[in-house]
């Protein structure tokens, strides 16, 4: 048990350091820094195109010959994002930590077991998170890991704001007594 606690304690540092080596290897081999958020608007525009809604006249579709839209697929970042899901699946299955879960326990403790409520908050929160990440020019991987590793001031500002926004919002959401 003692041994297990020791391993548990070092987990985020060891795997974090390995991820730092992986970033270095990625930059050395392909010149690619980690980032994931740009893939979401690209994927979303692809879905919109498939559904048959024509947004091709909008400015967003014309910037840099459509590089912000699904027409840039397949690209490095799409494969990187797919890889994250596959890698997590493999590691979870191999280590016996794969767990089917509909709602996170911490959420249920505060907001109750309603799927409808979680869905509504998730849609609103997801919109805020994605508009915010793309406006800021990155998410915790693009700005957080890649940008801060480059010692960029824009990334340091962005990450500070991610945490300030997150801590303030969490204070409101998870205040004692619950939110309705």
């Amino acid at each position: 048990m003692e041994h297990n606690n020791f391993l548990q304690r070092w987990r985020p540092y060891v795997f974090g350091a390995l991820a730092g080596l992986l970033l270095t290897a990625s930059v050395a081999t392909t010149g690619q820094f980690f980032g994931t958020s740009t893939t979401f608007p690209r994927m979303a525009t692809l879905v919109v195109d498939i559904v048959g809604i024509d947004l091709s006249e909008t400015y967003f579709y014309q910037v840099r010959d459509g590089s912000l839209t699904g027409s840039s697929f397949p690209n490095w970042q799409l494969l990187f994002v797919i890889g994250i899901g596959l890698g997590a699946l493999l590691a979870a299955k191999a280590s016996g930590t794969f767990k089917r879960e509909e709602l996170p326990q911490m959420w249920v403790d505060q907001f109750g077991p309603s799927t409808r409520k979680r869905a509504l908050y998730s849609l609103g929160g997801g919109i805020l998170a994605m508009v915010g990440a793309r406006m800021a020019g990155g998410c915790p991987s693009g700005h957080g890991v890649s940008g801060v590793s480059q010692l960029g001031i824009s990334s340091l500002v962005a990450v500070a704001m991610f945490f300030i926004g997150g801590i303030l919002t969490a204070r409101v959401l998870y205040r004692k007594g619950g939110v309705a």
Partner: protein
Amino acid sequence: MTLIIGLITGVLFGVFLQQAEVLRFEKQVAAMRLKDMTIVKFMLSTIVVGAIGIHLLQDLGAVSFAPRALSLGSQVIGGLLFGAGWAIIGYCPGTSIGALGEGRFGVLWPIAGMLVGGIVFALLYPFIQLNIQPIGALGNLSLHGVLGINHWIVIIALAAGSFFLFRFFEKRGL
């Protein structure tokens, strides 16, 4: 070839994220509730090692890179919006995909929200470029560039700061 390397890099990153346990809603929200700093330990460890690695590559002349452009309007407003959404959904874009791989199927709702957010962003894009991006747009500034010092001094300070922060977390059991 770039695509295959991208997939392999993603798989390895997914394994590391999963094994570090940072894909979990509880870990992400607990960090914002200042109760469990697992994700901060992971991020800072990645950043310190990554900063050393990529700056070594740059010093060796193997690669060159410039930081993302600074726009105070974009990073402050966008960053705060992202933080608020992050606290609500409990995942960031990368970890949401990893959490799906771990079996947390409830994350499909946040992923759907972020995809809708992608379209909202696309529609807001001209407004953001015109009205928010120009606020405090100061170019590709780096910390060492602004301070006028060697990048290794900043990296050593970053590593030392992280070390003391980690020690603080471990002492407090965070």
